């Protein structure tokens, strides 16, 4: 494939991505507005004196029409300003920066382990297709996949932290300095890893099985190309294409997992920020997070599609 057509593809996809991000942000804004109550009501809590709520609303400048507040926020964003939190008056950028570190650390560690484990086990299962190794890998991945993150987390904490006392049960009190306490990261990463690894292994296995049974692999074998080369130079790239795309989807998925894991292990990342912001109806913070997540998702999926095109140009990835 030519560089020009790849460039056109990327540009087209980026434009689409911008549109998608804008749509997500608008949708999130509309949904947050549609929730019962607003930031003033949430802040007033169990002292919902109408006068007090009105005063809070005025102080937060929530008494302005919806479109005006959205326009203000969008105007600020165009200048790189994420606005300020309604609840605390602190800049939203600070919320994002503070929460980003722990979440990124969790996600990076998870992906770093996900790729070798996922591909390794997938290829291993495909090589021994139908054999005991394949059956073991397939059934274990299916079983683990069926356990919800929350339950798995509780189980792991009970066994490894409370019963055996090998690992700390939470990351409480470590703040953002998680790297100084690597033991506290083991269980959260395990929980995050569990389900994506299973789906990736199964996908790689299926892709490899197909590729190894394909005419070109058989052709290569007839020509006396060694099995290792057939597997890794001929078959694997074709099996990788769908897996690379699956990997990008996994990163979106990590976000959901991260919310559960952060709550369970008390890791103050973006998931925690998001939960609190929604509960407090802190629209600017929710919006800021929507922008960040939207952009990340678009960029990752685009990257995955570009990789997939390089790996299997004939498969023709739709733009």
């Amino acid at each position: 494939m030519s560089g020009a057509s790849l460039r056109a593809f990327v540009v087209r996809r980026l434009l689409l991505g911008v549109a998608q991000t804008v749509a997500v942000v608008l949708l999130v804004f509309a949904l947050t507005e549609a929730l019962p109550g607003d930031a003033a009501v949430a802040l007033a809590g169990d002292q919902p004196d109408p006068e007090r709520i009105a005063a809070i609303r005025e102080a937060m400048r929530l008494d302005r029409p919806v479109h005006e507040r959205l326009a203000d926020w969008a105007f600020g964003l165009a200048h790189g300003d994420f606005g300020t939190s309604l609840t605390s008056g602190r800049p939203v950028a600070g919320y994002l920066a503070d929460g980003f570190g722990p979440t990124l650390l969790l996600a990076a560690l998870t992906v770093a382990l996900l790729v070798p484990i996922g591909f390794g086990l997938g290829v291993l299962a495909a090589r021994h297709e139908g054999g005991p190794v394949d059956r073991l890998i397939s059934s274990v991945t299916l079983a683990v996949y069926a356990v919800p993150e929350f339950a798995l987390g509780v189980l792991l904490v009970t066994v490894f932290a409370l019963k055996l006392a090998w690992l700390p049960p939470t990351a409480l009190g470590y703040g953002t300095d998680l790297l100084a306490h690597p033991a506290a990261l083991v269980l959260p990463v395990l929980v995050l890893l569990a389900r994506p690894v299973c789906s990736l292994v199964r996908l790689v296995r299926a892709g490899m099985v197909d590729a190894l049974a394909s005419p070109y692999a058989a052709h290569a074998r007839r020509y006396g190309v060694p099995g290792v080369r057939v597997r890794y130079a001929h078959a694997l790239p074709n099996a990788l294409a769908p897996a690379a795309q699956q990997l990008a989807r996994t990163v979106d998925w990590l976000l959901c997992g991260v919310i559960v894991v952060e709550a369970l292990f008390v890791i103050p990342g973006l998931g925690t920020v998001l939960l609190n912001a929604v509960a407090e109806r802190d629209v600017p913070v929710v919006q800021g997070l929507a922008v960040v997540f939207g952009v990340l998702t678009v960029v990752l999926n685009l990257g995955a599609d570009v990789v997939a095109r390089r790996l299997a140009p004939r498969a023709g990835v739709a733009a």
Partner: protein
Amino acid sequence: MHEELFPGLRRRGFLAATGAASLGALALTGCGGSGGTDSAADGGDGTPKRGGRLRAAFAGGGASETLDPHLASLFADVARAKALYDKLADYGADLSAQPRLAAKWESNKALDRWQVTLREATFHDGRPVTAKDVLYSYRRIADPEKAFRAKASLEPIDLDASRATGERGIEFVLKRPTAEFPNVLAAFGAYIVPENAGKDDAADFDTKPIGSGPFRFVSFSPGRSAVFRRFDAYWEGAARLDELEIVVAGEESARVNALLGGQVEYAHELNPTTARAHEGKGQIEIVRLRNSAMQAFCMKTDRAPFDDKRVREAFFLIADRQELVDGALSGAGVIGNDLFGKGYEYYAADLPQREQDLDRARALLKQAGAEKLKVTLDTSAVAAGFTEAASIFKDQAAKAGVTIDVRMGSKDSYWSDILDSGTLSCYRSGAMPIEAHLSQRLLTDSTTNATQWRHKDFDALYRQAQSTRDKTERAAVYGRMQRRLYAEGGFLIWGFADWIIGTAKTVKGVEAKAPANTLDWARFDKVWLG
């Protein structure tokens, strides 16, 4: 305060406002209700030791938290505010006002002017606490531009007319006679900050807060941790701990796990099931703070069907209180008698305990022409036990021929939603003086009158109580008001929940007789590590 997928994911701590005015102890007796500490650990003996760092886990408010004491609304906020700051008065175990920064208070005959004398105390930067600081703090809270929580409580004070009568003397001029004025001084969130604190930049509270409390500021990162160090010149004597760290974890299971794993030594707000699993097992200590949270159903008395007092009485008789306590609170609590403040000062303990009487309930409903009654009960996962209480009560009502339709509401806006809408809802309240409960919720002009209870003669009784100097006479008036509520009020108060705390075996001196929000609750200057 934030659960349906994960119960208690960010369960908001109880917000417990205190209302306008209370308790006219004209001459002060006793000190801050030091009634025996938690003796579960080692029979309560053992000499207090100095040193060490205590880590305490609370359900928190996330990245929006602040150390501004006047913005405190969650338990974690209050725990931090108590470490750094003092109030003029605070609540004893029976919710009577005890002197703190105020050494004494005296009123004129008409009870509308109060002379308060401050004790000698210093802020963390060495400046003395003066009348100016007190007036600045109260004026800041009462700022009409702001919506500080304690504003409603300070409403009886005419702050323009009040003035300093010396370095440590303040004359408070009130808008009307207020016998329970000391309750105002003890109000939730009425902390004393140094003059001009936060005037130029409210962010100063988060970066360099100065108070007169038992701990000095070290560091704070919102939604994560706050570290404090002992303040050696504290007026009540230095704390025993070297350092106190307050960390936040929204998930109850995370707080328990951290306690079991030795990552914290004190975990606040545990579930009854957790408490049962660990009580007497020797791994951790469980402390139950009795009478911490009133549990009720709230009937709107201004609309059908509850505008008929026979229907209200029928509902009082439908409730099987023990079943509600066992089911909704997992047994961690005591039954209620449709009156707020069991065990608190002025509580009408002489009224007979109501029992379930379905036949009488049916007869009353028949008299009221409400035999096939259908009612919608609003509930939400905003508080532990709410949804369970609703479904248990639904079954109880069915036995009396009443159909209850349970409606789940959003937990973030629940309190605001049920204030004026609906007819029947789940309700709870933190500890506050009985007088505050009356003034906040049961007068014609009350700001949060969830039962829509508006009676001129009842208002008059409240005013009479507030202008009665003699305590016995005043108690008699409160008794009359409570008998009226017992007979035909809108609050079906079925129980009082324990507030459950877990501590490590090494933690000593945790007060067990201190409902949440009182002086000795979350009071870390009295705690030591054995």
